[in-house]
């Protein structure tokens, strides 16, 4: 690389590069193979290292940071067990297309392949769950590989990239210059959609009688809530979001029909089933959304906008594929509609809305309030009110996740943070830490269950160390509720291993970690507890809500059924 630059060790190059790349936080955990890098971190102040309590927490925290800020998350772990512990977090980010760069230490190059102490083939182990990965064999390649890693992680369809760095590479020296630009001959993500296809799509849209817009995580990842909202209002069409797409369109708007899919609303699923033109944007026709693909939108012409060609026509054949960035393609659609003064079919649309309002009138999310026992839905409804819909909400996985998605209305993107694709229990708390670092002055709530929270509970210690005032809403039903629900519906109530025995006293547990704990057992205490917790601006508050044990999530589409075959309450 010529003679320019300063001579640095590999470890110094890593840290200097992170600084030059604009990285503020690295979530990590030290160990032998990364000690040089920790030493280099110690000697500077620009890149702040956050010490987690388990490497899974590091990757989830970096992931939460990325989801809430749109910037790449960075994690640093040691070789062997450090790397394998990080895998769950890497896979979680991979399934939801989240930009992460994970640096893993590796044994010295001359020991690779020798079953050396704490050696694991990290590149091999992570290969199926990364967008790409690298093993750095020469310190002279280090800066360029790091640049490639950030470039690949954050462009096109984002995803995690692992850079495996042997210890001797971090000790060796090379000239360092920050590589500003990078070109890869084998990787050139498309951005602009094909104009002919966009015109065909617009034509279909304005001619539609029963149109529907279905959008997903791609809108959030692209920062495209604005053009999506503008287009949807311009057309006056109904819109639904996937679990990953919530907040892409204002959740309180009347054109919004709620989430679709397995636990989506009646109106969203019925509108999907009966529509004649479907505009799918940055969504990947997941099986939780389509139900039985044979019956999915069988009457509709489908337009699909996605940056990843392999998402298009993977599960459902589409009529108008458009490969490109959401913001570019929707921007183009808006321009065409305005320029040509195109108008949707007013009367047909009015009739369609009348039909939708009928479906909406079933009030599929209603539940029986009780004075005796706390209904989980009630807690979330009140959480929404007390936080005025302004909180960042992370969640774990299970019934509580679905209720949070249904009852907390997100008007803004990047505020609903959950593991959709992998469905990783344990995600919620560490993800909330990342979110809080990204938005230090905002309210960050972690909605969880007594099962999930115990999967990464150790991070309560990290929260104390860094003074993270996260509000934990534990919907404690003493059951692995989602599992229990399936056992009730599909296994004749044989509740195998879904009852959570021997639970800790969460109040005392929180207190022993130096936080505030609350146990809430009566419906009347729900709001006061939430209000009090929100007032404790500087403290982490663990609210243990003792909820109805046997409440189920409705509506529900059983596996293999069509979107019009929902189980209602």
């Amino acid at each position, binding site marked *: 690389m010529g003679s320019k630059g300063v001579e640095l060790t590999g470890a110094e190059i890593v840290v200097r590069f992170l600084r030059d790349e604009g990285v503020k936080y690295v979530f990590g955990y030290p160990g032998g193979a990364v000690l040089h890098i920790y030493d280099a971190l110690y000697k500077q102040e620009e890149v702040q290292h956050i010490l987690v309590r388990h490497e899974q927490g590091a990757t989830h925290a970096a992931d939460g940071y990325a989801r809430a800020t749109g910037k790449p998350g960075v994690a640093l772990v040691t070789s062997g067990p450090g790397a394998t512990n990080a895998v769950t977090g890497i896979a979680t980010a991979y399934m939801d297309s989240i930009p992460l760069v994970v640096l893993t230490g590796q044994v010295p190059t001359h020991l690779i392949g020798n079953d050396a102490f704490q050696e694991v083939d990290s*590149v091999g182990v992570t*290969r199926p769950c990364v967008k790409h990965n690298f093993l750095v064999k020469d310190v002279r390649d280090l800066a360029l590989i790091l640049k490639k890693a950030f470039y690949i992680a954050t462009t096109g369809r984002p995803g995690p990239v692992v850079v495996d760095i042997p210890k001797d590479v971090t000790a060796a020296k090379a000239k360092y210059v920050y590589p500003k630009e990078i070109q890869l*001959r084998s990787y050139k993500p498309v951005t602009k959609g094909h104009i002919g296809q966009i015109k065909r799509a617009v034509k279909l849209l304005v001619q539609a009688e029963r149109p529907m817009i279905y959008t997903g995580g791609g809108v959030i990842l692209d920062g495209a809530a604005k053009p999506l909202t503008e287009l949807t209002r311009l057309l006056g069409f109904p819109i639904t979001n996937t679990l990953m797409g919530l907040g892409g369109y204002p959740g309180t708007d009347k054109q919004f029909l709620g989430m679709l899919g397995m636990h989506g609303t009646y109106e969203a699923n019925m509108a999907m089933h009966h529509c004649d033109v479907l505009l799918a944007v940055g969504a990947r026709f997941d099986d939780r959304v389509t139900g039985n693909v044979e019956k999915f939108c069988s009457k509709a012409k489908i337009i699909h906008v996605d940056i990843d*060609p*392999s998402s298009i026509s993977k599960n459902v054949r589409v009529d108008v594929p458009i490969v490109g960035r959401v913001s570019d393609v929707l921007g183009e659609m808006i321009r065409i509609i305005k320029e040509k003064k195109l108008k949707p079919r007013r009367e047909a649309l009015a009739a369609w809305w009348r039909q939708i309002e009928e479906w909406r009138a079933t009030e599929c999310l209603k539940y029986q309030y009780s004075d005796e026992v706390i209904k989980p839905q009630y807690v979330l409804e009140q959480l929404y009110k007390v936080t005025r819909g302004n909180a960042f909400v992370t969640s774990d996985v299970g019934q509580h996740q679905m209720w949070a998605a249904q009852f907390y209305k997100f008007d803004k993107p990047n505020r609903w943070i959950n593991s959709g694709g992998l469905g990783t229990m344990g995600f919620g708390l560490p993800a909330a830490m990342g979110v809080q670092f990204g938005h230090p002055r905002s309210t960050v709530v972690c909605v969880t269950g007594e099962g999930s929270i115990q999967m990464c509970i150790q991070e309560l210690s990290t929260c104390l160390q860094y003074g993270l005032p996260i509000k934990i809403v534990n919907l404690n039903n003493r059951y692995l509720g989602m599992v229990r629900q399936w056992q009730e519906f599909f296994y004749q109530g044989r509740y195998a291993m879904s009852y959570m025995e021997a639970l800790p006293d969460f109040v005392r547990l929180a207190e022993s970690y130096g936080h505030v704990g609350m146990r809430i057992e009566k419906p009347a205490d729900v709001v006061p507890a939430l209000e009090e917790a929100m007032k404790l601006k500087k403290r982490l508050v663990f609210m243990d809500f003792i909820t109805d044990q046997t409440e189920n999530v409705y509506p529900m589409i059983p596996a293999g059924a069509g979107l019009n075959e929902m189980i209602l309450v």
Partner: protein
Amino acid sequence: MRRIISLLLENEAGALSRVAGLFSARGYNIESLTVAPTEDPSLSRMTIVTHGSDEIIEQITKQLNKLIDVVKLQDLTEGAHIEREMLLIKVRAVDADREELMRLTDIFRGSIIDVTGQTFTIELTGTGEKLDAFIQAVDNELILETVRSGVTGIARGEKCLRV
């Protein structure tokens, strides 16, 4: 349908396992896979023979294109192309069989490249079908060992797969 997909790959350690891993992780079929460096040492050329419905083939090409190490891809079976595979076969060759095997090799335009008192080793190049036909034609009892290179291929005419 059977397809021959040609790839130009970055000549990086691990590129082969990314392709192989993709096929096993997504449950795609591989009939054969060959790979070797090209005249440009930074690139390898890979030829994959696979089969599946049109939808599956579409996914295979999209997923391959998505791999960061894949520089370029061509489905040879979409146009006129030439397909070749090499067979090395060791056969027991004694008495009258020697004469018969020599004639057969001639008919198939193969060549005998190693000889002992007891055996011949025959080299034959052609399409997979031709190699199958040759193996069929040889008395099964005589076959001691077969090695096939796997299919390689190239487009006919002026069409090229290059960067």
